[in-house]
């Protein structure tokens, strides 16, 4: 889900920048510091919409640097367990497929008792490991590789609707596992 959110960012400014162009420097520093970053708490920060307050700027004793606590409003993207999202398939292999949901990559697994899932350290009950309907089979002879059943085909750049069943949050990245094995999920046109 995309959110609009008020966030803060602390900028330390070297004294050589104190001067008439300081404000525009602070602004561009904020943009380059936060845009495109990802944190577990707020998800992906996609773009700064507006700067609410650039901060007063306290000179720190000892170093002479000034500390600005800026408040800004940004578009953030954070995935949640249980959320249904649309995505574009970007990679298919025999273990399942990866779909891009904005900045996030979601893995949908096809194998039972999957090694890759345990590698990603997800704690799912064993019944959930197969997240693609068994009718969809991996077709190793197709080019590009695909999962196919009688009436559906999943290959690179197919649009799918999937449900996020688990997320794992790193300091700088989010990993997610999804399923298409439920009603109203799967290939969309």
């Amino acid at each position, binding site marked *: *889900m*995309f*959110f*609009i*959110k008020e966030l803060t960012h602390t900028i330390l400014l070297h004294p050589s920048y104190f001067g008439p162009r300081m404000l525009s420097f602070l602004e561009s520093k904020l*943009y*380059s510091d936060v*845009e*495109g*970053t*990802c944190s*577990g*708490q*707020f998800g*992906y*920060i*996609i*773009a700064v*919409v507006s700067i609410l307050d650039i901060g007063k700027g306290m000179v720190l004793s000892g170093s002479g640097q000034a500390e600005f606590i800026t408040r800004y409003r940004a*578009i953030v*993207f*954070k995935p*949640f*367990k*249980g*959320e*249904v*999202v*649309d995505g*574009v398939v970007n990679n298919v292999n025999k273990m399942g497929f990866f779909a*891009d*949901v*904005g*900045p996030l990559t979601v893995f949908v697994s096809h194998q039972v008792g999957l090694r890759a899932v345990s590698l990603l350290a997800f704690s799912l009950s064993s019944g959930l490991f197969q997240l693609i309907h068994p009718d969809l089979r991996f077709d190793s002879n197709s080019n590009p590789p695909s999962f196919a059943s009688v009436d559906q085909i999943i290959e690179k750049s197919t*649009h799918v*609707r999937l*449900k*996020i069943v688990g*997320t794992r*949050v790193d300091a700088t990245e989010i990993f997610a596992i999804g399923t298409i094995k*439920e*009603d*109203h*999920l799967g290939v969309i046109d």
Partner: protein
Amino acid sequence: MATKFRHRPQNEEEDASALKLGAEFNNAGCLLISEVKYLLENRDKDAPDTKVYNKTLEYVKTFTKFNTTHSASAVRDTLRREPALTQFETAQIANLCPASADEAKSVIPSLVKIDDDRLEALLRDIQTMRKYQS
């Protein structure tokens, strides 16, 4: 002891199907994909050349359901008729555009609180708007 409880990781409790988004996001404003597209395309600054930004822009262009600001705000007005809807549910309905009440309740489980007929009427209005947007 009280501090220990307050600082326990909130990740365990998050569950979108029960509308639990964690302390940071429970009251945050949700954006429709169409609104994100508008905001990204109408920035006064240059677009940052980050992977996150470019992938998001491509994504919102692919999955935008309402391509004018007028139709996006009309959808918000329609969904405001139902006061029980939270921000998150509003955005999910507008992003996924389910065709029937049954489908809506399956992809957004927290909608069970809303009567089938009312929900069906809302969804029909949204489908019509989607079809006839200029």
